[in-house]
């Protein structure tokens, strides 16, 4: 648990275990307590109560030895603008008793062409790759990454994912935070969904999606049946009872639900709706994602949760 003066608890009752060789994601909206959690694990923040074990050791004794085996990328680090990529990596390499030569880390993150460029001349994606390279300088067994792809364009994000997959393929462990559901799905073996300082779900992405009761999401747009009642409400009642349908969520004219066998569920749905006079003006179907898991568990989308943080 971590609480701040004034009684604000950033994180409470967060109990999890990360296995060697896996990529573990802490997934949640802004302000959920992800950064607090990862910085406690990194030994940069002290928990108000609770225990942390990293690579079988706890913080507080022989700290440098432990730091020599982990690599960290903070949420925002502004590296010196006037220094070149290779110079920065030389510096970070010098902090570790053993590690990768600067040219080797440059190669791992694909910055060969920029090795003599100053940090100030790099794009956002290149800077983020350099931050990862700094984390790799000590050839760590365990990598902590706080929001590694926030603010990057899709191409830069994919490049970064490939770097991390390469790191994991060498049998190493990654713990990252993200508020991108797709990132967690593609990269992580297991994720913990965090909201308001608590873990609300834990498992592999397919397991979590399966917990919805179906891996397909069907979204319907409805027109009223002329009775004056809200079209979604009327339809929702009718749909809930159909076998194989779960997680029905109604929002004005829109109804979303999950189904494991859409080819069976859809005809049943349309039949029921026809029966109570609702007109369907749109139907879309997609694979269920972790986003749907978050919505099911919290009743709000990640964007809504981010907006809550801004509002408070």
């Amino acid at each position, binding site marked *: 648990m971590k609480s701040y003066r004034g009684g604000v608890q950033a994180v409470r009752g967060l109990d999890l275990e990360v296995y060697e060789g896996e990529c573990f994601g802490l997934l949640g909206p802004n302000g959920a307590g992800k950064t607090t959690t990862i910085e406690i694990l*990194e030994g*940069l*923040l002290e928990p108000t109560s609770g225990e942390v074990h990293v690579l079988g050791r706890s913080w507080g004794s022989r700290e*440098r*030895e432990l*730091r*020599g085996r982990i690599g*960290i990328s*903070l949420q*925002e*680090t*502004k*590296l*010196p603008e*006037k*220094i070149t990529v290779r*110079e*920065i990596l*030389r*510096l*970070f*390499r*010098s*902090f*570790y*008793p*053993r590690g990768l*030569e600067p040219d080797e880390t440059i190669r791992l993150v694909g910055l060969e062409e920029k090795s003599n460029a100053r940090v100030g001349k790099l794009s956002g994606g290149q800077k983020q790759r350099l931050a990862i390279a*700094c984390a790799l*300088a*000590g050839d760590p067994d365990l990598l902590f990454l706080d929001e590694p792809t926030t603010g990057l364009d899709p191409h830069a994000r994919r490049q970064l994912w490939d770097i991390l997959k390469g790191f994991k393929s060498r049998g190493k462990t990654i713990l990252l935070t993200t508020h991108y559901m797709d990132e967690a799905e593609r990269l992580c073996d297991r994720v913990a969904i965090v909201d308001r300082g608590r873990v609300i779900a834990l498992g592999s992405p397919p397991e979590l999606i399966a917990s919805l009761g179906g891996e397909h999401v069907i979204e319907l747009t409805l027109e009223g049946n002329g009775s004056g009642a809200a079209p979604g409400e009327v339809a929702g009642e009718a749909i809930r009872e159909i076998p194989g349908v779960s997680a029905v969520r109604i929002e004005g004219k829109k109804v979303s639900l999950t189904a494991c066998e859409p080819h069976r569920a859809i005809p049943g749905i349309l039949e029921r709706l026809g029966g109570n006079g609702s007109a369907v003006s749109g139907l879309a179907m997609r694979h269920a994602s972790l986003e749907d898991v978050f919505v099911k568990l919290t009743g709000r989308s990640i964007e809504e949760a981010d907006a809550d943080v801004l509002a408070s």
Partner: protein
Amino acid sequence: MRTYWPVKELFVIRTKEFFREPDAIFWVYVSPVLLIVLLGIAFRNKEAPQEVRVALVESPRAEELARSLETAPGGKFLVEKAPLESAKSLGSSGKVDVVLDPRDGALRYIYDPAREGSEAARLKVDAALQASAGRKDAVATETVIVTEPGSRYIDWLVPGLVGLNIMGGGLWGLGFVTVDLRMRKLLKRFVATPMRKSDFLVALLGSRTVFLVPEIIVILFAGRLFFGLETKGSVLDVALVTLVGAICFGGIGLLMACRTDKIETINGLLNVTMLPMWLFSGVFFSSDRFPDVMQPLIQALPLTQLNVAMRAVILDGASSADQWPRLAAMTVIGALAFAGALRWFRWV
């Protein structure tokens, strides 16, 4: 496998960062030279006997008096005729040194004795007029004018500027840079590695001290080039006094920065720290000018101690060993500041 020395790498990075910043180069190396040249010009010693500027109040005798002054031997007078009121305002604004008002057969001198040179001007004007009216010198006199390097204002100023730069370098170089690194989360990033905190601090202080070397050479060289000021003390003594000063002000800079996480705050803290030393520590004018009651306070300022020691070494050729009380005072202040800074320092 190659071996790496973190202190060296930190030092190299800091040095490269500094020398790749054109603004920093200007402030550190160019501005003190400009300051020397400008102050040297403003306060230059007058080479020849000075001309005396006189406002002569218009009256029937004005013509005759003006002629007497203009033809007086051994003195140069610039005479401006004006009605009484405008003559007085010329005097009070400092455009003339003395106002001469011939009235009722007598000569009235109007001047403010607090204004530099007005007393002398009155004496010169009076002597010239008395001589032209027939007064004879009772004693034969002779004048020797001294403008040798070592006794002029500029000589006094240059060691003060050296001290000022050591103070600025230590305070800004450690205080400002530390807060900047903290704001950029680089301090936090560094302590997330196995880096030794002491390596970081040693490299920061060491690089700042090395930047001082060209700084001081530039100032002393400018003093020599433009004003012929020779450094009498040995290079080693200058270096030792500089080093002790650098450590002292580096410690104070670090103390100011130890918990600060805003640029505005550190700016304010450093300016508040520096202002009394700018004024009282004898950079631009001697601290002896302040009343005795303030002296204990003034002597407690580290820049006062540094300036006294630096002047002794540069101007009088004193050895740094002679200056041990000054050096000891700075060492104690610096050590206390460092101890406090390390005690309260916030890395993350």
